[in-house]
């Protein structure tokens, strides 16, 4: 046998082979799972784009949609509507979410911080159709009509826990030593927060806000309830119902006409492209922030 026979290193401890085998199985299966996740993304994106590419044109992007069944129009009114609905939602949700995060991480006693965190996680878990029904009862029923604003409120409710939770995570990453240094200089607590903690975390906070926008831009269920019966042409008044990309996709896909289906795929491609771009931008901000926080 080998020259090392009898040496302690060469002794077969019985389970070495088994451990190697387990190691290989786990490595292979986790790699396969990762590849599977990437493959799903690639399949979704390519199938959406290949099916929709035929309908994407400047005309498609700059013309409002036609009457029901008329596929000669485009999605300009849906793009404008989505921008307005999501924009108003962001204006409502992002400041509140940031304030909630600042309160819970910087000022609240630990017990209240935990309670708020738990509440946000619950809110995050509420199915969005429930949020839609809630806003329907809250705004649409009393007003007796749908509106872009109602859609914004629903999206803001969905955004709020996302913004707040990501901001909490980022703020807790700011090194305690920086806050300590500020306190030791006699800098007041709120000033430390505004001038030291927030600037240090800025990149990560922007990331969270952008991701929440990307998340709700494609939100469909609540909008079908509170903002789906809209007039012709490019509308900009949030007091009335506005078109939106997700609702356009939904309605076109319900249509019997194959041209409408192609338009739905095309609109879906636009939506995916928007979300991808937002994610890439968000990552860039996050990288900057991590550098500052020494991570």
């Amino acid at each position, binding site marked *: 046998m080998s020259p090392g026979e009898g040496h302690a290193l060469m002794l077969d401890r019985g389970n070495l082979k088994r451990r190697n085998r387990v190691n290989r199985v786990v490595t292979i299966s986790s790699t396969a799972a990762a590849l599977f996740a990437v493959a799903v993304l690639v399949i979704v994106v390519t199938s959406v784009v290949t099916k929709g590419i035929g309908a994407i044109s400047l005309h498609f992007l700059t013309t409002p949609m036609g009457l029901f069944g008329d596929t000669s129009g485009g999605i300009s009114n849906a793009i404008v509507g989505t921008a307005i609905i999501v924009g108003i939602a962001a204006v409502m949700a992002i400041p509140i979410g940031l304030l909630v995060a600042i309160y819970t991480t910087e000022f609240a006693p*630990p017990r209240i911080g935990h309670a708020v965190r738990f509440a946000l996680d619950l809110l995050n878990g509420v199915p969005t159709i429930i949020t839609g029904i809630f806003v329907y009862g809250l705004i649409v029923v009393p007003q007796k009509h749908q509106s872009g604003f109602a859609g914004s409120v629903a999206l803001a409710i969905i955004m709020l826990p996302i913004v707040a939770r990501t901001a909490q995570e980022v703020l807790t990453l700011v*090194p305690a030593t920086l806050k*300590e*240094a*500020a306190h030791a*200089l*006699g800098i007041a607590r709120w*000033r430390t927060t505004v001038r030291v903690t927030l600037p*240090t975390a800025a990149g990560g906070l922007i990331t969270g806000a952008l991701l929440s926008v990307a998340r709700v831009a494609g939100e469909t269920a609540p909008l079908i309830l509170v903002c789906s019966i809209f007039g012709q042409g490019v509308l900009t008044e949030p007091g009335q119902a506005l078109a939106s990309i997700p609702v356009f996709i939904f309605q076109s896909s319900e249509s019997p006409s194959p041209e409408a289906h192609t338009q739905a795929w095309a609109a879906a491609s636009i939506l995916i492209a928007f979300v991808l771009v937002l994610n890439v931008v968000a990552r860039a901000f996050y990288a900057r922030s991590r550098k*500052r926080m020494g991570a």
Partner: protein
Amino acid sequence: MDSSRFSETATVTDSNPEPRTSAEAGAGRPGPTISFGAEGPAKSLKPAREVGNVALESLHAYYGSNHAVRGVSLGFPAGKVTAIIGPSGCGKSTMVRCINRMHEEIPGARAEGKVMLDEIDLYDPSIDIVAVRRSVGMVFQKPNPFPTMSVIDNVTAGLRLTGASRSEMDDRGREALVGAGLWEEVKDRLKGPGTGLSGGQQQRLCIARALAVDPEVMLMDEPCSALDPVATLKIEELIGELKERVTIVIVTHNMQQAARVADTTAFMLGGELVEVGATDKLFTNPDDDRTEQYVTGKFG
């Protein structure tokens, strides 16, 4: 320009109104980084070192139910460097953090007893905690410049963010950098990021930041533990210069460092003060057996 420091020169040059005087004043003076004699920048900050005596009177500190500092009475005389040594967990950092009331920032932490700064009890209910922190500066283990701020903004952070006027800031900031022995190294990159400096420079930046608010006492909690030997040596030299203008309390794990920089050394164990005395005596001929065992490396 730094009007306060150049005021004497200004009266002389009044009768000699030549444009080169200001350049001459800068060139002719002993380099501001070096001299800390009677005319050095120290003088312009503080006329005399009659202030800055710190005395702990039966100080107790707790983390919840954990009694970390158990009745320490100890004086830190003005113009001197006092080192605190002792094994990990002996309460030396906690004790020091009681002097600028940073201890109570930790949830559940509290302190009892008196910390006298000259005639004032820093724990008196009428005392503003911000005023305490401005009188008692602190430098931490790891250099912690603010990563979003430039070098000069870091130095003046304590002034800017506590509401000082813009006009005095540049002078005070420069003075503090000179005081921390960093001016020559950073004068061309004041607008550059504070985190772009080397570790040792960052720590001196933090010392400058603490000096800029003009404290009477400077607490240093293992200020060299994250630095290489050369940077450590620079900080130690700096401590020797700074004691002219601030009372220095330094916590250190490094007994050679205590021996090099401290006039007085205190040895703590289990939250209690075991022995305090002249550094030479404490290291060569301590009164207490436990001190002897510790300084000779028998435990800790």
